C-alpha cells in the first residue's frame, strides 16, 4: 500500500515537472511576432508585406502569430511563445509591474481614440447604473483614459469600472448600434469615425484631450530574452519598424494600396485614416511617465518606474 502511494506520488510529480521545462534550443534567427490588424497597427502589416526584417538581416525568419487580444499576447510572452508584441502603454506597464522582463523597443503610432456616447448622455455624470460602456478590456488604454477622465470630472477614477463590458472593437460597434444597454463605446479609428457618422452619437471624450498631451497609442515591446539573446535580430526589427513608419509617412498612397489587400476597407478610406492630421506614425515612445504616475495613483499599478531605462531599451527614442 505504502509503496503504491509513493509510486503514484512520484508519477504525479513527474507529470507536473514537465510543464515548466522549455525547449532551450530556440533558433536564434527566428523572431516570433504577434500579427495585429487595424489602422494603428499599419506599420506591422507593411513590415510583413515588404519582408523588411528578412531584408535587413540575412537568413532571418519571421513567424507571425495570430493572437486574440493584448492579454493573450502578454500571456504568450510570459510563456516564451512570442518575442515581440505591440500594445498600448498601460497593458505593458501592468505586465512590467507584475515582474515581466520586457521593455519598450519602439513607438509605433497614435490614432484618434475616444468615448462615443448616445447623445442622451452629455457628461460622465449622466451614466446610470444600467448604462454599459463597451471597451476592449479593463486595463486597456481605453479603460485608463476613461479612468483619467472620471478622476478629473467626478473625483473617482474607478467610479465607472462596474459599468464596463468587454467587447472587441467591431462587437462594441454592433452593441452600441443595437441600442440595448450599451450606451457608450471607448474605441479608436476607424470604428470611432463610423460611429460618429450617425447623428445619434457624439464624441464625449477625446483621448488626447483627456491625457493632456501627446502619447503613443501603440508601442512595440520585446522580451528581455530576445533583446539579450538575439541582438542582431533585435536591431533588424527596430530598423524595420522605422522603415515601415517612414514608408507610410512618405508614400501614404502606396501604403494604402498595400493595406487594402489585408484590411476589409477601401483604399480611399485607408488613405484618409493614415494621412489624417490626427493620426501620427512615429517611433518615439511618448507618454510613459504620465500613464505610470496616474496608474500608480489610481491603484492599477503597485509601483512606478524610476528611470526610463527601467522600461525602455537603450537607444530607443522617447519623450516621457
Amino acid at each position, binding site marked *: 500500500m505504502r509503496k503504491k502511494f509513493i509510486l503514484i506520488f512520484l508519477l504525479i*510529480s513527474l507529470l507536473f515537472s514537465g510543464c515548466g521545462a522549455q525547449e532551450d534550443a530556440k533558433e536564434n534567427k527566428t523572431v516570433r511576432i504577434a500579427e495585429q490588424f487595424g489602422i494603428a497597427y499599419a506599420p506591422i502589416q507593411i513590415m510583413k508585406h515588404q519582408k523588411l526584417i528578412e531584408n535587413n538581416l540575412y537568413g532571418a525568419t519571421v513567424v507571425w502569430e495570430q493572437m486574440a487580444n493584448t492579454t493573450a499576447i502578454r500571456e504568450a510572452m510570459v510563456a516564451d511563445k512570442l518575442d515581440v508584441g505591440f500594445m498600448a502603454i498601460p497593458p505593458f506597464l501592468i505586465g512590467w509591474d507584475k515582474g515581466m522582463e520586457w521593455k519598450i523597443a519602439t513607438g509605433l503610432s497614435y490614432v484618434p481614440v475616444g468615448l462615443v456616447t448616445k447623445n442622451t448622455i452629455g457628461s460622465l455624470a449622466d451614466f446610470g447604473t*444600467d448604462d*454599459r460602456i463597451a471597451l476592449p478590456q*479593463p486595463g486597456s488604454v481605453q479603460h485608463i483614459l476613461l479612468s483619467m477622465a472620471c478622476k478629473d470630472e467626478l473625483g473617482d477614477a474607478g467610479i465607472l469600472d462596474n459599468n464596463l463590458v468587454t467587447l472587441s472593437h467591431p462587437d462594441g460597434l454592433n452593441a452600441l448600434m443595437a441600442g440595448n444597454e450599451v450606451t457608450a463605446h471607448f474605441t479608436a479609428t476607424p470604428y470611432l469615425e463610423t460611429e460618429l457618422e450617425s447623428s445619434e452619437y457624439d464624441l464625449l471624450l477625446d483621448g488626447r484631450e483627456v491625457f493632456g498631451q501627446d502619447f503613443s497609442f501603440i508601442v512595440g515591446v520585446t522580451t528581455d530574452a530576445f533583446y539579450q539573446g538575439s541582438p542582431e535580430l533585435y536591431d533588424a526589427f527596430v530598423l524595420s519598424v522605422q522603415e515601415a513608419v517612414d514608408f507610410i509617412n512618405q508614400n501614404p498612397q502606396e501604403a494604402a494600396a498595400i493595406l487594402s489587400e489585408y484590411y476589409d476597407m477601401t483604399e480611399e478610406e485607408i488613405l484618409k485614416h493614415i494621412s489624417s492630421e490626427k493620426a501620427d506614425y512615429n517611433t518615439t515612445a511618448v507618454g510613459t511617465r504620465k500613464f505610470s504616475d496616474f496608474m500608480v495613483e489610481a491603484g492599477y499599478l503597485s509601483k512606478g518606474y524610476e528611470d526610463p531605462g527601467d522600461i525602455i531599451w537603450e537607444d530607443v527614442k522617447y519623450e516621457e
Partner: protein
Amino acid sequence: MKSKIKKEHLKFIWIFVLLAVWELTARFGPVNPISFPSLAVIASALWESVITGDIISQIWFSMGFILTGLLTAIILSLVLASISTFSELMDSFTDTLVSVFHPLPGIAMLPLIILWFGTGSKAIFIIIIHSVIWPMLLNLKSGFKSVPEIYRKIGQNYEHSMAGILFKIFIPASLPFGLAGIKIGWARAWRAVISAEMVFGATGGKGGIGWYIFNKRVFMDTPGLFAGLIVIIGIGILVEDLVIGKIENSTVKKWGTSQ
C-alpha cells in the same frame, strides 16, 4: 493490509498530496512565478479578496442569478413535463425541443443572445435557463415515465384531480430523477454564469465571480486568478456535498426510494 481510512478522509489526503506537489513545483521547479505562484502567495491573495469583501459580494451576485434562474427553469420544466404526461401530442413536442436544444452549449448561443437581448442581466438569465431547463426536463420526463401505471390508477380511484395526482404521486415518486436533474442543472448553470461573465464582463452592479477572474487575468494578477478558481471549487464542493447531499438524505434516502 485492510484500509481503515474512510473514503471521505482519503479525499483530503489526495488534496493534500496535490497541494504538496504544487508547492514543491512552485518553489523548486523550473517555473515562472508569474504563471505558477506558490500556495502562500495564492492564499494571501485569497485572504485579501475576502477581507476587502470583493469576492464575497461577487459570489453573492453570481449565486443570486443562479438561484433565480434555476428556480425559474425548474418550474418551467415541471410544467412542460406535466403537460407531457397527460398529452401524447405535447410529449412528442417536448421530446423534439429537448433533442434540438439539449446538445447546444449555452456559450455557443452567446453571439445570438447578445444580438437579441444585449449583454445585460437578461442575457445571463436566458443562458442559465437554457442550460438548466433541458437536462431538467429530460430527467423529469423519464422520472414521470418510471412511475408505474398502477399508481396513477390508484390516484384516480381516490378521485384525485390531475394536479393532485401530479403533486401527491408523480413528483414524490420520481424525486430521485428530479434531484439528479437539479444536480446537473446546478452544475451547468454555475458554468454558464462564469463563462458568460468572462465573455461580457460585468452584468449590472458589481459583476460576479467570472468577472472577478477576468479582471485578475487582464491585470495579470495570477495569484488572484487562482484565488478565484479555489473559490469556485470550494463552492462546487459545498453545494454538491452539503446542500444537495442534505436534501437527498432527508428525502429520497430516508424514504428508501434511492440509495
